[in-house]
């Protein structure tokens, strides 16, 4: 069954959607959308690095994303606003990454595959990596759920209940780096933020509790991956962007229906 590239692609899409959706809820609640984007952009630098050192792609991306995320969080508040820092870091890391990739003359690189993903080329080994990463992220979030949620609400409230908001922030940062590293193959650097945000934003309309929002977002993300893959197969469109298009369409549709019914 795993021999079929379409089955593998579908499983890869589901894995990424399941991990990205609950994490995406936190990205929305904490207003970290731009942070997710910057972390994803820095992945290009990670790709260049791992190609240069002929290290595994996953590892290079993970390390660079982590460094980037930690650097931005620790520099914030020291004379720069978060969004200024992110604006600088996000686009310069993308630019530096693209320049660095161009120096690698020995290997021919399909840059489009990294920028927009190449889900149909997911191999059995990639699939293991994607599901391994996704399960780690889901496990981390489920394990720390009360602390993460309370720190998101109010850090003083969290401290008074014995949680450490800085530690919870670090857990989100690590999860974000892992999701970016596993999602590159599926939707590519430029559209990872969409996988995080679009299903979660759509789920907000139907949810009355945070748990409900996370579960609905995971279901929506899965639906987008599966149907996006089929549409792209039928219509011969690029898969990653098609998945995101389905998500965007659902977001607009649900919001329109809700507005009209009110």
């Amino acid at each position: 069954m795993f021999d079929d590239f379409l089955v593998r692609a579908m499983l890869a899409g589901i894995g990424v959607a399941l991990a990205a959706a609950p994490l995406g809820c936190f990205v929305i609640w904490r207003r970290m959308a731009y942070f997710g984007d910057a972390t994803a952009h820095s992945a290009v630098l990670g790709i260049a690095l791992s190609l240069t050192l002929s290290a595994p792609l996953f590892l290079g991306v993970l390390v660079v994303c982590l460094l980037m995320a930690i650097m931005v969080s620790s520099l914030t508040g020291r004379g720069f606003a978060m969004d200024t820092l992110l604006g600088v870091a996000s686009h310069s890391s993308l630019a530096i990454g693209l320049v660095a990739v161009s120096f690698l003359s020995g290997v021919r690189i399909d840059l489009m595959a990294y920028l927009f993903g190449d889900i149909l080329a997911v191999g059995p080994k990639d699939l293991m990596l994607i599901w391994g990463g996704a399960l780690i992220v889901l496990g981390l979030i489920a394990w720390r759920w009360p602390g993460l949620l309370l720190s998101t609400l109010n850090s003083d409230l969290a401290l008074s209940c014995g949680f450490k908001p800085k530690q919870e922030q670090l857990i989100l940062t690590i999860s974000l780096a892992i999701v970016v590293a596993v999602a590159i193959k599926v939707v590519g650097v430029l559209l990872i933020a969409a996988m995080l945000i679009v299903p979660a934003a759509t789920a907000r309309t139907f949810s009355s509790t945070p748990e409900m929002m996370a579960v609905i977002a995971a279901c929506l993300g899965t639906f987008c991956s599966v149907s996006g893959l089929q549409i792209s197969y039928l219509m011969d469109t690029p898969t990653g962007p098609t998945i995101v298009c389905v998500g965007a369409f659902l977001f607009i549709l649900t919001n329109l229906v809700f507005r009209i019914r009110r």
Partner: protein
Amino acid sequence: MLIECDNLSIYLGQRKVLSNINLSVESQEILTILGPNGSGKTTLFKTLIGALQPSSGVLKKKPGLKIGYVPQRLHIDETLPMTVKRFMNLPGGHSQSTVASALSHAGVPELDKQQIMGLSGGQFQRVLLARALLGAPDLLLLDEATQGLDHRGTAEFYRQIANVRAHLKCAIVMISHELHVVMRQTDRVICLNGHICCQGKPETVRGSPEYHALFGLDSESEAALYLHQGHRSHTQAERVSDV
């Protein structure tokens, strides 16, 4: 004694925010901390709940002391869906009946299914109070809990606080800058301005020169100022109509 600060000093970065704070809270007393903006009231509170470590001095707590904390103005992002019931049970572990009784002690038993976003300021403050009451605390800390409430809402909130003490037998420490409002509800007042300027019974503090030096105006001259401003804008309006 529930909690005691012994010669406590706190630096935030290079700045000394609090110096040589000596204070203790006895069981079942209501203590009000007064002070102008930037006087270190919130810093003191954060130290009491353990969010900040004292730079020098000792903070002693009665073993097993349970603290309930009502934060200053809590902003909940509208992207985060949250019912009152779920908020009360975060981080969790409280039975439905505990949650229901905390909500009724705070005077809002009917709100449990509502979205936090849809609550009025006064309702939300009471939900925060209810949440702080969940663990049956020995000590309740309120950080400017009535900020943003109108006069009636504030008076009602303080009445609720007095009720809570009567029923739950806990000590209460609150930050406020309205001595004339909290006068009747408080046993002891501390004036803070980086250090403790004066303390004692509310009547004593109100008469002390340190209190007047800190706040300048008492409530009577505040009222006079308000009347004066009202008068001025009136004459300005007249002048406009003349032109």
